[in-house]
């Protein structure tokens, strides 16, 4: 059993935030994208990772309205996969152990902070998490956020977003100070 969707329908669904459209693209293009990586010294797990990243790029650019499609979706995804995999290959080959160590040390500090923020995100509740995701990742307008969250209007969405962000900032700053003290 197979489903066919036009590219325009897929884009429309993604703009509405229907994640099922992402599932559809994943299944439809999986073989081709994985083959791209496999034929270029990658493993299937690496291929999956690259393809998923490409899909997420596509999702984000579509929801935020940044995407201007001049080709088929699959062609676009193929190009993104190519670029991502090329970067990964370059990263693998160019990074000496020393460079890697320095980079990892910097990454570690940032990651540690980001981990703290992740914990705080878990504490502010699902609704706030969604609102902030829509705002920072999908880059939806306040009208769209209101629509998705069932708020009365854009102003309500703006207020909710403000309160959620304030709560998150407050939580993070509390945890940051504790961490700074321990350091």
């Amino acid at each position: 059993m197979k489903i066919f969707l036009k590219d325009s329908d897929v884009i429309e669904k993604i703009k509405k935030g229907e994640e099922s459209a992402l599932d559809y693209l994943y299944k439809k293009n999986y073989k081709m994208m994985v083959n791209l990586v496999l034929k270029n010294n990658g493993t299937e797990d690496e291929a999956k990772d690259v393809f998923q990243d490409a899909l997420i790029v596509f999702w984000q650019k579509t929801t935020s309205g940044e995407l201007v499609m001049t080709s088929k979706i699959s062609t676009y995804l193929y190009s993104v996969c190519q670029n991502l995999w090329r970067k990964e290959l370059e990263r693998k080959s160019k990074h000496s152990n020393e460079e890697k160590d320095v980079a990892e040390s910097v990454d570690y500090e940032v990651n540690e902070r980001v981990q703290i923020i992740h914990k705080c995100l878990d504490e502010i509740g699902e609704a706030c998490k969604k609102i902030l995701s829509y705002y920072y990742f999908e880059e939806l307008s306040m009208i769209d956020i209101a629509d998705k969250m069932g708020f009365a209007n854009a102003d309500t969405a703006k207020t909710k977003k403000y309160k959620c962000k304030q709560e998150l900032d407050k939580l993070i700053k509390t945890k940051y100070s504790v961490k700074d003290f321990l350091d």
Partner: protein
Amino acid sequence: METNKLNELTELFVRGKLHGDDLVAFNKQLEADPSLATEVTLQKNIKTAIVENRKAALKSRLNAIQVPSVTTGSTSVTSSFTALKAASVLLVCAGVSVGSYMYYNSVSSEKVADNQPVNSTESIVNESVAKTQESSVVANSELTKENKVVENVNSAANATNVENEESSTTVSANAELTKTKKRNFNLFKSKAKAETKQVPNLDALDDKSQANVTSHEDNPEALVTSNNIQKLSDVDIKTIQDGAHKFHYRMKDHVLYLYGEFNNTPYEILEFNDKDGNLLYFYYDNNYYSMKPNQEAITKLKKITDKKLISDLNVVRVR
């Protein structure tokens, strides 16, 4: 500068939405004010965490999708069974509308088996692979409203006995079906070999090679038009709720219009092709209904009561 205004600018800066003079001014302030620089770093980290959080959720969703392994060239039975189970749950929970065509064509399988053109074979592979994924695809109510779902069950010439009489049609799905499926699996292997020539070397990739890849593997529409599925690809399914017609249908301009609340419950459309034309059956809420392929007027769906026919349709549908 007023705190609220500064916060607003910081947020815009972190989101990459600050431009022109505002950006220049903010950068100057950033250089001059270490506490603002600290705040910007924190806000950048917050944005990163939010974005990562969302990406992780999307990745987790994608990871849960069962896909056939490309490296082994086969589909895990366990995986498809899991997908089936997951889909069943989704079916119950979400309330899904499903349009499916079962396409019976006694000629096509022989054609494909003899010629094995890349696109046709790919199409068949896709059909085979799609079967293992179908439940998770089907379970998606958002995707099914205007879709064509195609199950291409190739059969040998005598595999089915379809009589074109509305209430006394007999459909016998026999062992030939299994035989044909096996044949498709063999084609899958052939295709796997052929593909090695099509996937370009990454180093040699340019726009031209990209275009070539697109034309072969990256073009489901082309695959569809390359063989007998073409007819089905031209058919859309649309559901209409107009109040006056609550359980009706019509076929017009390659669109099947379903009148009623068909978005909330799964349905399937079984299409059988033989020399005399198409036979359509609509499966909905455990009942079968007959449909006429050329029915342009809005017509009420007529329930099939013939027990033998229902039994035969069940056999084919479950397969």
